[in-house]
């Protein structure tokens, strides 16, 4: 059945849930449906005739802001806008007005139909939606995961604080509405992604890769966002083309993983063999590369193998028994030297250090093994070397000691102990200064304290006495061993250098004597030159004078001049004879023998018989003593002294010469005393020089000046001395001292 249109319209009009107001061309309400009276609170009669504009609450001074209304192009005059209507009870309703023009009977005043839709239910729905969104946001903020949503245009819709925190370097760039790429580029500029590279090209490639992963997400991946922070990135695309990004901070995980990997690498790489064993069934859980290579098994072959089967020295039960204290907790650590069998059957010696680890979820046996085959060989070789060294040290004639830096002896070789009349163990533990002569201790300590890391070795020679009191010279080489700049040990080696020391001393003495002889020779040469040149020059000059006088017819001085020539000639003759005598005796090799000194005295006196008679000289000799010397030289010495006594006699007094001898444990002293004119004590040394005379007047005291020089030369050639006793005042007294050797 088809209802007439007017009936249908009327039914709709009456039952329409929203208020419908019909106005005339002047805006006056001419009709209102029941919903209008219900919603607005006015009676139908009150609405009819009411200006519709009265119902509307002015907003911003415009009662009917039609210009803000939506219009429809295909419906002329239709518009829809929001408005606020005041109900009869004063309430203001937010409404949506839809106004449709009616065909007017009076074209100048066209009527309208206004449908009023109450927006309050919609607002309540929106409020409810807003509350849900807030709760969602709170929930997102409370999770530790970073969370972000990008819309279909890849613009950020929302993200939580954790997401921002994970990108702390460029948080300000993370704003709603910005695209993922724009945020990513800001992050790159902030330096958060050092992995992106330094060049523009590398950075663009990195961004392209990241966008590819973002737009075509796959498995989660880890990205380092700073030197010590990593995040796991997981992107998803929703059915309605939203991109959801999740970020999880996996720093701790990465660190733990890194450390575990590092530990694994270390275990795998160490030279020692490392085993992890299940203590319950002794099965191998893990063996490192060193263990696998030495045993020649793969990890697969070793895994689960009874560790006792590797032992070639003991049966499995014996191994269990040995490990029992460790398994029962009696001990935490065991060290065993045992033998491991390789896959090919060969065997090697292994030192195993086993520890029970109980702190983990499951107890474990950690076994660290070391192939000590080479070490044992080295130890055996070292032991052989040590034995050889000990034998060498024992056989060395040197004195050898080792001591702590405070000089406490830790080792003394047998020779050193024997030198001191002790056994080595009696000396070890004592300070070696105890075995050094007290007068030498300061010097030794000074030497040792002067040893430094830069100069750890010094050598010194010192005199030592053995246990019998016999003196030796030893060259001691002290070496201080330093570790990290601190002294740890003093090694001392003493070598007997007595012979070489004595030889050096003898050479030094000879060198000194040679220097003295050279000086004397130089002086001698100077004197010879002077004393020979002088008479020659005089002879020449006197000869010239004679010739000159003869030429001038002068004769009064001829005799005097010729006498001078004769005198000078005699003087030179005597000097040359003395030189010959000196050179024959002074450097003569002595031929010592034992004889009685009285023999030499008598012979010397006999040689001077004529002179003695002339000088009326008398000899009083008490020379009955055995000496060890050259008889001829000693005779010459005494003869020279006697001749001097006769030559330098006091005028008018008979010469008296006395010879006395005294012997001691070490020397023989011979004194020759006269009653002559004596010698000035100030000249006591000079008189022994070659060509030294104290008296120029040869008419009274003739001589070459070599007599006493010869006496000294003879005394010294016997290792003795001759001196003038300057305390003697009644003439001259010479004392000859000879060492008492060969007697």
């Amino acid at each position: 059945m088809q209802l007439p249109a007017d009936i249908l319209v009327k039914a709709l009009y009456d039952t329409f849930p929203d208020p419908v107001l019909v106005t005339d061309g002047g805006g006056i309400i001419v009709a209102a449906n029941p919903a209008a009276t219900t919603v607005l609170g006015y009676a139908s009669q009150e609405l009819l005739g009411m200006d519709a504009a009265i119902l509307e609450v002015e907003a911003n001074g415009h009662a009917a802001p039609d210009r803000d209304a939506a219009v429809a192009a295909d419906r002329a005059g239709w518009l829809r806008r929001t408005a606020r209507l005041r109900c009869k009870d004063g309430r203001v309703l937010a409404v949506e007005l839809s106004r449709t023009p009616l065909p007017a009977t009076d074209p100048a005043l066209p009527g309208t139909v206004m449908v009023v839709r109450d927006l309050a239910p919609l607002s309540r729905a929106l409020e409810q939606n807003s509350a849900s969104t807030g709760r969602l946001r709170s929930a997102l903020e409370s999770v530790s995961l970073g969370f972000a949503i990008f819309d279909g245009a890849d613009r950020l819709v929302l993200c939580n604080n954790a997401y921002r925190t994970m990108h702390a370097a460029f948080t300000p760039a993370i704003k709603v509405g910005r695209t993922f790429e724009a945020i990513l580029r800001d992050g790159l500029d902030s330096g958060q992604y050092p992995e992106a590279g330094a060049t523009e090209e590398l950075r663009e490639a990195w961004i392209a890769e990241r966008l590819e992963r973002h737009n075509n997400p796959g498995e989660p991946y880890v990205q380092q966002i700073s030197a010590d922070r990593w995040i796991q990135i997981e992107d998803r695309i929703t059915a309605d083309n939203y991109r959801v990004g999740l970020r999880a901070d996996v720093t701790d995980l990465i660190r733990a993983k890194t450390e575990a990997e590092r530990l694994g690498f270390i275990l795998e790489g160490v030279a020692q063999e490392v085993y992890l064993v299940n203590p319950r069934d002794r099965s191998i859980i893990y063996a490192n590369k060193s263990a696998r290579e030495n045993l020649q098994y793969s990890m697969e072959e070793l895994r689960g193998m009874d560790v006792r089967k590797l032992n070639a020295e003991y049966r499995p039960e014996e191994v269990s028994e040995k490990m029992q204290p460790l398994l029962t907790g009696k001990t935490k650590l065991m060290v065993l030297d045992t033998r491991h069998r390789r896959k090919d059957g060969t065997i090697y010696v292994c030192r195993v250090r086993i520890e029970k680890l109980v702190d983990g979820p499951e107890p474990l046996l950690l076994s660290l093994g070391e192939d000590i085959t080479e070490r044992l060989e080295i130890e055996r070789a070292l032991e052989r070397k040590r034995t050889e060294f000990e034998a060498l040290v024992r056989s060395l004639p040197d004195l050898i000691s080792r001591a702590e830096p405070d000089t406490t002896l830790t080792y003394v070789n047998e020779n050193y102990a024997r030198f001191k009349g002790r056994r080595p163990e009696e000396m070890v533990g004592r300070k070696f200064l105890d075995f050094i002569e007290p007068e030498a201790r300061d010097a030794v300590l000074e030497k040792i304290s002067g040893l430094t890391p830069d100069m750890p070795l010094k050598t010194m020679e010192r005199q030592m006495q053995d246990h019998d009191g016999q003196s030796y010279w030893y060259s001691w080489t002290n070496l201080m061993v330093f570790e990290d700049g601190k002294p740890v040990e003093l090694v001392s080696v003493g070598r007997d250098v007595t012979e070489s020391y004595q030889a050096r001393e003898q050479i030094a003495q000879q060198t000194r004597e040679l220097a003295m002889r050279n000086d004397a020779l130089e002086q001698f040469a100077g004197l010879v030159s002077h004393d020979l040149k002088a008479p020659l020059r005089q002879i020449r000059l006197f000869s010239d004078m004679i010739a000159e006088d003869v030429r001038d017819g002068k004769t009064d001085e001829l005799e005097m001049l010729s006498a001078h020539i004769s005198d000078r000639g005699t003087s030179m003759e005597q000097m040359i004879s003395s030189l010959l005598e000196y050179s024959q005796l002074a450097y003569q090799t002595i031929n010592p023998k034992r004889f009685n000194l009285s023999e030499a005295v008598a012979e010397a006196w006999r040689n001077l018989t004529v002179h003695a008679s002339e000088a009326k000289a008398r000899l009083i000799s008490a020379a009955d003593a055995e000496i060890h010397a050259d008889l001829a030289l000693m005779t010459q010495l005494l003869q020279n002294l006697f001749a001097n006594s006769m030559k330098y006699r006091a005028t008018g007094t008979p010469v008296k010469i006395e010879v006395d001898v005294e012997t001691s444990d070490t020397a023989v002293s011979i004194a020759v005393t006269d009653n002559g004119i004596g010698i000035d004590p100030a000249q006591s040394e000079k008189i022994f020089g070659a060509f030294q005379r104290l008296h120029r007047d040869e008419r009274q005291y003739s001589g070459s000046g070599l007599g006493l020089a010869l006496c000294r030369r003879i005394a010294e050639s016997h290792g003795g001395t001759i001196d003038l006793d300057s305390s003697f005042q009644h003439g001259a007294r010479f004392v000859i001292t000879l060492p008492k050797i060969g007697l």
Partner: protein
Amino acid sequence: MNSDRRGQPLKILLVDDDPAEHVLLRRTLEKVEGPAIELDYVGDIASAVASVKAGGIDIVFLDNRLVPNNDFRETAPQLREAGYIGPIGIISSDISGKYFQQFPEFGVDFRIGKDEIDRTAISFIISEYTRNQLSDNCAEDFL
């Protein structure tokens, strides 16, 4: 210096323990031209000291080796200590010893080998060391 004594001969003192040297020097001086020269002779340093103390000595020829002394280093200072301020020359048969180079330190004015002594050398020494005037340098200072 005594050579300013008008009309008096220049007096040289020879100190040498060899009398023959006296004869030789005397004969050499006889040939020297110029002012009259008088030669005194003593044989030891003690006599020389006495002589210079007595005064009148214009120049001293001192033998290097006067026994028992070693050399001029022991004798020349004795003359200076005696107050003698005139020139002292060391004469010796051999002046090659290094110590001769030290002669100014011991109050000696010159040294000469005995074989170098002739009338020319004597004339030069006399003119150099006995001029009756201040030294050139001093004279210039007072001009």
